[in-house]
């Protein structure tokens, strides 16, 4: 049911020529995906997809459209060859899937390897009820360190490509009157959004949430501030230079936690070394690492948004 809606949205998005509409349909698409994730027990993923897909990536796409223009040129193009390629690939994939374990099968190979161990030992070893957070920050800490560095590098790449130009405000539209209502509403809401982001950050050990989500939500709050009150105000709150330092600091926190455990004679990123009691150490380590992730994600996403929104439109 949900999936058929997804398909409809995807195909409609493909046919539209107004790129603004495409981006909006993409937003709907990601809302649907997140609903689907909720249905499949992936609360944390739904959380992330909600914050990222519907929020940040839509905003970034729109910010880019402001710079490149919103209409696609009509083009005469023979769709036959791509269609054949796509159909052939699809047919091959579907054929290959016919042997796949059935949906929801508890004995599928994917379910029987490491997952049972994480589920049975995880809470006792790390002291966290949320296994996703435990696996993310502790068991697969290396992966997550890698991902954090990737996010950081992506932020640097965007800065290299677009530069840290001084803010050129999007011209103010309409009169002050037009904005007043938005401003008041946003001013009331932003503290709640930021507070909620902190809640997600520090409650992630117990419920859905964690550094990635919290960083994105915090950034979204700041983006709202920027949208409603203008660039100059936002720059007064937090500057580019500070942001890039915060991003680096996040990665550094993560790396140093690993280094600390290495220096105290344990393998890299083994948090048991952080405190006398291994479970306590794990808990502390996960908290610190999530903090690092949250900092990096927040500052990099905000930085990327700054880079896009500050760029002047060239004729």
């Amino acid at each position, binding site marked *: 049911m949900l999936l058929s809606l997804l398909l409809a949205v995807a195909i409609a998005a493909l046919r539209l020529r107004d790129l603004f509409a495409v981006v909006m*349909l993409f*937003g*709907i698409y990601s809302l649907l995906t997140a609903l689907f994730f909720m249905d499949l027990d992936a609360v944390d993923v739904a959380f992330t997809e*909600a914050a990222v897909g*519907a929020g940040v990536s839509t905003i970034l796409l729109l910010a880019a459209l402001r710079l490149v223009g919103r209409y696609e040129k009509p083009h005469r193009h023979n769709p036959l060859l791509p269609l054949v390629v796509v159909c052939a690939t699809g047919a091959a994939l579907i054929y290959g899937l016919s042997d796949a374990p059935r949906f929801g099968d508890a004995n599928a190979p994917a379910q029987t390897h490491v997952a049972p161990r994480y589920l049975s030992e995880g809470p006792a070893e790390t002291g966290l009820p949320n296994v996703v957070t435990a696996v993310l920050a502790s068991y697969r800490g290396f992966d997550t360190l890698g991902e954090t560095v990737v996010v950081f590098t992506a932020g640097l790449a965007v800065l290299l490509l677009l530069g840290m130009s001084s803010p050129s405000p999007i011209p103010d539209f309409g009169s002050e009157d037009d904005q007043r209502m938005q401003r008041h509403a946003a001013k009331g809401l932003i503290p709640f*959004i930021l507070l909620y982001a902190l809640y*997600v950050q520090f409650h992630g050990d117990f419920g859905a949430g964690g550094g990635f989500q919290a960083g994105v939500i915090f950034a979204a709050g700041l983006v*709202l501030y920027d949208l409603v009150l203008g660039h100059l105000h936002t720059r007064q709150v937090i500057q580019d230079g500070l942001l890039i330092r915060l991003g680096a600091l996040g990665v550094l926190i993560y790396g140093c936690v690993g280094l600390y455990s290495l220096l105290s004679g344990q393998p890299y990123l083994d948090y048991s070394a952080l405190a006398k009691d291994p479970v306590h150490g794990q808990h502390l380590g996960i908290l610190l690492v999530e903090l690092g992730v949250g900092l990096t994600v927040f500052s990099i996403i905000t930085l990327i948004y700054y880079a896009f929104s500050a760029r002047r439109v060239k004729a």
Partner: protein
Amino acid sequence: MLVATLIALFLSMVLILLRAFAGPSVYDRVLAVNMFGTKTVLVIAVGGYALGWTSYVDVALLYAMINFIGTIAVLRFFEATAPEQATPDESNGEPRP
């Protein structure tokens, strides 16, 4: 009762999607996306309660926030690209740079 509500919500989601596909102007689409977001919040809240999902409210709350941010963002950026479109005699507001 919950099931009836869910069905109603799904029906309205489908209808809203129709408008989002057809919607002649961009604003129709923005409106549809905004409504769709609210409907998603409701579906998560009602469905989460009915099916016993854990921490569904958190996700619903997040959606309500993100939805608002998204709508405002769309409007702001659309305004930033719109001026070429608006014919001067029709927009009797102040001329924009």
